[in-house]
C-alpha cells in the first residue's frame, strides 16, 4: 500500500472531526470530535514514520495519545462540574463571557 493512501484517509478524518467540532453543540460530542482530529494526526504521524523507516513518529504518536488522555480527563471533569452546578450542557447556552 502506498503511504499516500493513509495520509489521505487521515486528511478526511481530520476534516470530518473539524466539521463535527463546528456543528455539534454538546460539549461531550465536541470532545469526541476532538479525539477524532487527534487520531487523524496520529495516523499521519505513523504514516510518515513508516515512510522514513524511523520509529520517532511512533513515539510521537504515543505522546499524543497521553496528551489526549489528559485532555479527556480534565474535559470530562469540567463537564461533570457543569452538571453539578446545573449549568446547561450546551455550547450555545454558555455565553456568560459573551460581553
Amino acid at each position: 500500500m502506498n503511504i499516500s493512501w493513509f495520509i489521505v484517509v487521515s486528511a478526511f478524518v481530520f476534516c470530518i472531526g473539524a466539521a463535527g467540532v463546528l456543528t455539534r453543540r454538546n460539549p461531550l460530542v465536541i470532545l469526541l470530535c476532538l479525539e477524532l482530529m487527534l487520531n487523524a494526526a496520529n495516523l499521519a504521524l505513523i504514516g510518515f514514520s513508516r515512510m522514513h523507516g524511523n520509529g520517532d513518529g511512533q513515539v510521537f504518536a504515543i505522546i499524543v495519545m497521553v496528551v489526549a488522555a489528559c485532555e479527556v480527563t480534565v474535559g470530562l471533569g469540567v463537564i461533570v462540574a457543569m452538571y453539578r452546578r446545573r449549568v446547561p450542557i450546551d455550547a450555545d447556552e454558555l455565553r456568560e463571557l459573551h460581553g
Partner: protein
Amino acid sequence: MAEVFFFIAAFFVFGGAIGVVGLRNPFYNVLALVTHLFGLAGMFLLLRAQFVAAAQVVVYAGAVMVLYVFVVAYVGGQDEPLSVSTGRGNRALAVLFAGALLVELCVAILGSGLEALDSDGAGVAANDPNGFGTPGYIGSLLLTKFLFAFEAASILLLIAAVGAVVLARRRGGVGTLDEQRRISVSDLLAPIGTGTMAEAASGHVGTPALEAEGERTEGEPVKVTGW
C-alpha cells in the same frame, strides 16, 4: 492482501467518524468512536506500528471510552434537537469550512512532491533485526532518545488526574467545613466507647440530662434531638 485489509479498516474508520459527527444520541457517538478506533488500530498494524496499535485498543478503546460512557450515563445523554436554533447558516458555514480544509490538505499532500509518499515506505524488512514497531523497539526509544518526553508525559498525567479530581469533587454537598466535627480535648478525656453502639447496649442513654431524669418507662424510645 494488504489492500483488502486496508479497505476494510478504512470502512470502519470512515463509518465510525461519520457516526461520531452524525448521530444525535451521545451514547451512540461514543460507540461509533470505539468502532473508529478499532479501524484505526488495523491501519496502524498495516503501517507496522504493532505496539501503538495495541496501546490504541487497550488505552483508548478500553479505558478512555469507558470513562466517556460513564460520564454520558451520569450526565444523561440528551438528544440534540435537530433544528438548530442559532440558524442553519452556521452549520452550512461549518461544512463549507471543513470542505475547504479538506481541499487544502489534499492540495498540500498531492503537491508536496514527496516521492516517498508513492512508495511502500523505506526499507523495513518483514523480519527486521531491530524489530521496527515492536514493544522493545519503542521502549528502547522512549528510555534513551525520548527520555525527557517520557518523564514529562508522566508528570502531565499526574497533574491531569489531580486536576480532574479537584474539578469534579462535590462542593458544599453534605456539610461545610465549619459544621464538620472538630476534635476537642473532651473527646480525648472521655472514656473509650463514649457515644458508640456498645454504650447504648449497656444501658447508657448518652445524654446526661436524660440519665439524671431516670424516670422513663421501659420500652419508651429515647428521644434524640439535635441530629
